[in-house]
């Protein structure tokens, strides 16, 4: 974010500063957002679970974790067993416990919600079990089968790639992961809000996955720059593509290059990697554009860095927001103002730096299409962040495999691409852009690759 920081000296009136807070406030604002359950609370919560037959929560979990079984185990203090039940289905169960939109997945299906709008806190119980395991000396639950001598290349050390690699390694295959960034973890390391992944959990989870053995990670290896798909196919027995979405959607307005206008994902990545959060440049008045969880994470985090006014503007209503109700409410309790039904029309600069942004009110026309009303308002802004979605950059693939109508890698139900030795999963394929879905994609592809290699 050095380009944003420049505004401090660029002669504009933009109010951007570092160290807006007292040093102690950063720790407080970016520590774990949820207090982990203690044993007493966990057991009480576990006893709220009915241990359903054909439990709807299992169906609602993309990785099909046997939720009633792991919760039953928590209730009997078989916490290590609970963790195993979770990790067998979802090796990133610890991370998912922190980042899953549980209120839309497992907890939404919980019969206790149906009964009394009081679902079992499945996410928090999952975290209780996995945290317990990670704190143990004998945390390793898995064993590699005898080596098959097969080698698989995985692109991307995010949830899809790590999940795929772990499942393949368990089968006795050797995996090399090529990761463009200097660290592993993907969005868990670079994209998720800091307070959801406190205490370097993303790296701890990566370390746990690698502790199985048989997985090598080569950082700073980007597809299309340091490696090519053709090269990997020639060298390895199979390839899994889990590189996520590299591109960020633009507003398509003039002046998007103004200083102070940036991508939310970039700012969040710098925030996650910053050794000293006080060193981040923070505008006094910040506008975030978008309605997904990235927009919410951006708005809350810059607020927690000391921005005075943070406004999130979304072109539609709350029901259409990608961010869950829970996230929206969390933004509001963090003093983020949410303005709905307006779209950005004009970025207004002052000496090359953003100073204000004009919005047009929106509404649905008779056919349900979003249109501008012709009425406008302007928000003063020292910083504007775009969080209106990301896109998959297919260029590094050089057209070697088919791309879906939505611009992502086309795969069959097993995650296999149109190349029979190449699989793909996670955000670079279609489907919900969730960590838990990426983990499932990786797991499913690994099973398919294993079958392919065993044939």
């Amino acid at each position: 974010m050095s380009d944003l920081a420049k505004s401090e000296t660029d002669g504009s009136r933009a109010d951007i500063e570092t160290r807006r807070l007292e040093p102690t406030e950063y720790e407080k604002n970016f520590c774990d957002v949820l207090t982990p359950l203690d044993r007493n609370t966990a057991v009480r919560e576990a006893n709220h679970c009915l241990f359903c037959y054909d439990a709807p929560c299992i169906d609602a979990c993309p990785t099909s974790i046997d939720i009633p079984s792991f919760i039953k185990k928590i209730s009997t203090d078989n916490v290590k067993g609970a963790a195993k039940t979770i990790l067998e289905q979802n090796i990133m169960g610890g991370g998912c416990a922190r980042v899953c939109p549980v209120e839309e997945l497992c907890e939404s299906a919980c019969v206790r919600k149906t009964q009394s709008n009081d679902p079992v806190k499945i996410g928090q119980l999952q975290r209780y079990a996995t945290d317990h395991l990670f704190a143990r000396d004998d945390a390793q639950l898995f064993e590699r089968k005898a080596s098959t001598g097969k080698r698989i290349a995985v692109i991307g050390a995010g949830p899809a790639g790590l999940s795929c690699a772990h499942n393949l390694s368990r089968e006795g295959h050797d995996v090399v992961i090529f990761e463009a960034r200097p660290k592993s973890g993907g969005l868990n390391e670079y994209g998720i809000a800091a307070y959801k992944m406190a205490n370097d959990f993303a790296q701890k989870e990566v370390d746990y996955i690698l502790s199985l053995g048989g997985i090598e990670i080569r950082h700073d290896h980007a597809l299309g720059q340091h490696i090519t798909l053709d090269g990997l196919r020639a060298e390895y027995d199979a390839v899994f593509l889990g590189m996520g979405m590299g591109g960020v959607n633009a507003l398509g307005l003039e002046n998007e290059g103004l200083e102070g206008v940036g991508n939310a994902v970039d700012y969040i990545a710098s925030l996650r990697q910053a050794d000293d959060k006080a060193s981040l440049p923070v505008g006094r008045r910040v506008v975030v554009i978008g309605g997904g969880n990235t927009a919410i994470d951006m708005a809350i985090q810059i607020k927690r860095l000391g921005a005075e006014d943070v406004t999130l503007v979304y072109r539609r209503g709350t029901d259409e927001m990608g961010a869950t109700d829970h996230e929206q409410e969390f933004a509001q309790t963090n003093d983020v103002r949410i303005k709905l039904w307006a779209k950005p029309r004009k970025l207004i600069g002052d000496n090359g730096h953003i100073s204000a942004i004009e919005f047009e009110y929106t509404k649905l026309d008779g056919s349900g299409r979003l249109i501008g009303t012709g009425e406008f308002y302007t928000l003063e802004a020292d910083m504007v962040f775009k969080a209106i979605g990301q896109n998959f950059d297919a260029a590094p693939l050089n057209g070697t495999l088919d791309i879906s109508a939505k611009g992502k890698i086309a795969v069959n139900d097993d995650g296999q691409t149109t190349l029979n030795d190449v699989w793909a999963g996670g955000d670079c394929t279609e489907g919900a852009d969730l960590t838990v879905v990426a983990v499932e994609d990786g797991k499913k592809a690994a099973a398919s690759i294993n079958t392919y290699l065993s044939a």
Partner: protein
Amino acid sequence: MADLTCKIGGITSPNPFWLASAPPTDKEYNVVRAYEAGWGGVVWKTLGEEGPPVVNVSSRYGAISYNGTKMAGLNNIELITDRPLEVNLEEMTRVKKNWPDRVLIASLMVPCEEDAWKSILKRVDETGCDGYELNFGCPHGMSERGMGSAVGQVPEYINMVTKWCKEYTKKPVFVKLTPNITNILIPARAAVDGGADAVSLINTINSITSIDLDAMSPTPVVDGIGAHGGYCGPAVKPIALCMVGEIARDPECKNIPISAIGGISNWHDAAEFIALGAGSLQVCTAAMHHGFKIVEDMIDGLSNWMDDKGYKTIEDFRGLAVPNYKNWGDLNMNFETKAVIDEDACIQCGKCFAACEDTSHQAILAENINGERKYSVITDECVGCNLCELVCPVDDCITMVPTPSDKPYMTWGEDPRNPMNQAKKVG
């Protein structure tokens, strides 16, 4: 407003809620707090003879929790009072003087010697207490010295000591029975024959609440080992109800008044025991778990329920369930009830299906139509066991509906399927 006055064995109490002889009634301080909270009476913690000291160990209680609920059952290895007799008597005298409308019963446990009983009765009579309860029940500690349940397990001793007590005091004598026997009627009849004015039951049940898997010892652990204790609390209520019912319906027990004890935790439990013939109700674990204040809801809840039902006094409904407590052989073989599931109320937990499919009669159909779970009763297969209704977490979602029938009332004794009847036919 219902009248909760309770009359039992010649004693009148403003309400039927008494604290049982136990740690909560060990001294004046506790008893006064109990009276202030509204308890109708107390049975003072058991007095022993003067002389041989009673010394308690440290680490005295163990409990079981059930699904996160603490103290579903409580176990203790405490002995009778370990305070000097003189101190207890002095306090009892003062308490009775200051609280004349409340019941104060002295619980006694001395060796099976006539002089010992004669002597203690003489001394305790002077406190002005309303009556006695002979502790023939404690199953631990004192029983190893030939008292407590060691007496309660020998009907002849019960009979003998009861007679002595009736001879040496004019006050009512309650006999407290141990459940650690095979048939409660034998000791109960012995007490009745001995002239008891009432029986109190149940005392605690022999128990090991748990094994400490680190210490590898029963709990409570006393320096690495444990002894069996006496079990009480909500978990023992069904056992107590059954024993109370046995005595209430037994002609040989001649309607002996019953002071019921055993897991009574609220007004609902109280109403059940009264319906099964109990006069007064003794409470211990619930008070030890929650404090004396719980009596407020016991009184208020019982009173409101009685108002709703139109019962003006305790006697109006006391014993109403006794004629309906029968033996299995008296039941109607032609009665049939079937489960009905209210699909609108169903939350799709499938507990009824798992229970019926795995452990009962495979009488529930589970369907999963595009993720919508539907559970329905296969009426022809349903034997009316109630299990699905019992496991269902939703009130009134599963109901048991009796099948209308023109068939006559027919006991197993009259049932043609009974081999004895077939034998008769052939004969």
